[in-house]
């Protein structure tokens, strides 16, 4: 029974395409159109278009924005420059994660931020309550704008025919404001698939035109199912799985996000710097199965009968054609090649720690 689920501006199009719609973070979203595997393969070999309008988009303006973000974010804004974006986490004082997100520096006093759908209200409140006396104004643009991810090896070639900017001049994590068939868009070379590609954002009223234009180029509609299998292969953390309010970025393998930022205090710094230098008692590792079966979230992991952790994300890898998973386990078992047991419903299957990412082509 679907009650009061929020809809993106492309809801009607998804339904018309015969997508299977599911509740994701309170939005009715397409999990697949025809086949998750076909959509996954389209992104690995051609191009796919994802409706990610459920995600949040904030604009932060004011002369103190950089100072403010330096205090809230664990990554270092000094590594950023205008026209570039940065992936980061904002953490609680104990180092666990409020959200992971990307922000883009449009000007030293204007940043665009993209956050997880399920955390929009929480993030907006967290940011707002930490402004204090700083000169920062936050605007929630989530409902006014449509966001699409356009990903795949052919995304450059396809998109170049529609936009009035030289895509070759935009490096990874850089962005531009440009026009797509005359429609003003924000265009960033970022993504969540492990494949080259772009993420774009524009006013809602153009949603159907832009979607249609990208599909007409030869890209496949791709749903949340493929988005998840692609990001798992690429080993990108998903909030609520690898990171959440009880797991820190260091435990999740995102230790490279934790920056020293000499002379700057930021929320969670003390514990995260300590974890980064001393290590943590538990860490996330990549896993394969030696027996046949599929790893799924929350399956328990054992070593010689002792419970040592659980699967944070698992599934079938269409590219590698086998099951892959990420598990949060005690650190003494993290070495590659370590054999573990994984409880798959009523039986125990043999797993093995493997290097990550499982697959990435960026």
């Amino acid at each position: 029974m679907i009650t009061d689920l929020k809809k993106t501006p492309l809801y009607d199009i998804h339904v018309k395409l015969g997508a299977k719609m599911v509740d994701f973070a309170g939005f009715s979203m397409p999990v697949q159109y025809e086949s998750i595997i076909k959509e996954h393969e389209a992104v690995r070999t051609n191009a796919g278009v994802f409706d990610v309008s459920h995600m949040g988009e904030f604009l932060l303006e004011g002369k103190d924005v950089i100072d403010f973000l330096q205090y809230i974010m664990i990554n270092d804004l000094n590594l950023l420059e205008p026209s570039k974006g940065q992936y980061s986490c904002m953490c609680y004082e104990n180092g666990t994660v409020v959200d992971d997100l990307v922000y883009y520096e449009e000007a030293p006093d204007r940043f665009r931020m993209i956050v997880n759908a399920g955390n929009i209200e929480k993030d907006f409140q967290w940011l707002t309550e930490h402004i204090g006396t700083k000169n920062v104004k936050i605007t929630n643009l989530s409902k006014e704008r449509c966001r699409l991810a356009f990903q795949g090896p052919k995304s450059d070639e396809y998109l170049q025919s529609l936009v009035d900017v030289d895509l070759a001049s935009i490096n990874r994590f850089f962005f531009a404001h440009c026009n797509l068939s005359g429609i003003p868009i924000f265009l960033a070379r970022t993504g969540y698939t492990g494949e080259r590609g772009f993420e774009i954002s524009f006013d809602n009223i153009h949603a159907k035109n832009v979607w249609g234009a990208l599909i007409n180029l030869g890209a496949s509609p791709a749903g949340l199912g493929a988005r998840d299998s692609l990001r798992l292969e690429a080993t990108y953390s998903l909030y609520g799985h690898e990171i959440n309010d009880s797991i820190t970025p260091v435990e999740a393998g995102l230790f490279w996000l934790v920056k020293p930022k000499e002379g700057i205090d930021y929320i969670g710094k003390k514990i995260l710097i300590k974890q980064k230098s001393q290590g943590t008692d538990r860490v996330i590792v990549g896993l394969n199965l030696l027996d046949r079966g599929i790893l799924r979230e929350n399956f328990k992991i054992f070593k010689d009968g002792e419970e040592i952790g659980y699967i944070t994300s698992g599934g079938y890898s269409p590219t590698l054609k086998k099951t892959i998973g990420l598990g949060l386990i005690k650190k003494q078992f993290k070495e590659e090649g370590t054999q573990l047991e994984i409880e798959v419903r009523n039986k125990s299957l043999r797993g093995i720690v493997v290097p990550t990412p499982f697959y990435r082509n960026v």
Partner: protein
Amino acid sequence: MEYRFPSELKYLQTHEWVRIEGNVASVGITDYAQHQLGDIVYVELPEVNTTLNKGSSVAEIESVKAVGELMMPLTGKIIEINNILADKPELVNSSPYGSGWMIKIEISDKSELNDLLSVEAYKEVVNAEKK
């Protein structure tokens, strides 16, 4: 979305189909069930010669996104399993009533056949679920 439900088969509320040939029942999942699961990537079948009661779980069907179970439609002994599914689980998607069959059962109690659904009754189950 139109699903295929061959009229010569019997069905279960839990979306299995059953083909009766003498004392043997072949079993798989319906077109509706394979579509609901999506791309099937692994099917764990039982050992041959296992005897199981009607209604017990006999196989696990894993898709990219979900896991489903195959229920025993009738009490009996497993006399054959579709070993091809080990390497080609996608046959359950492409041919749910043909090469995507899963198990063959030697029927213990023919009176249980009366509990299986006709195609008309099963279509009503699907229609009710779709709403």
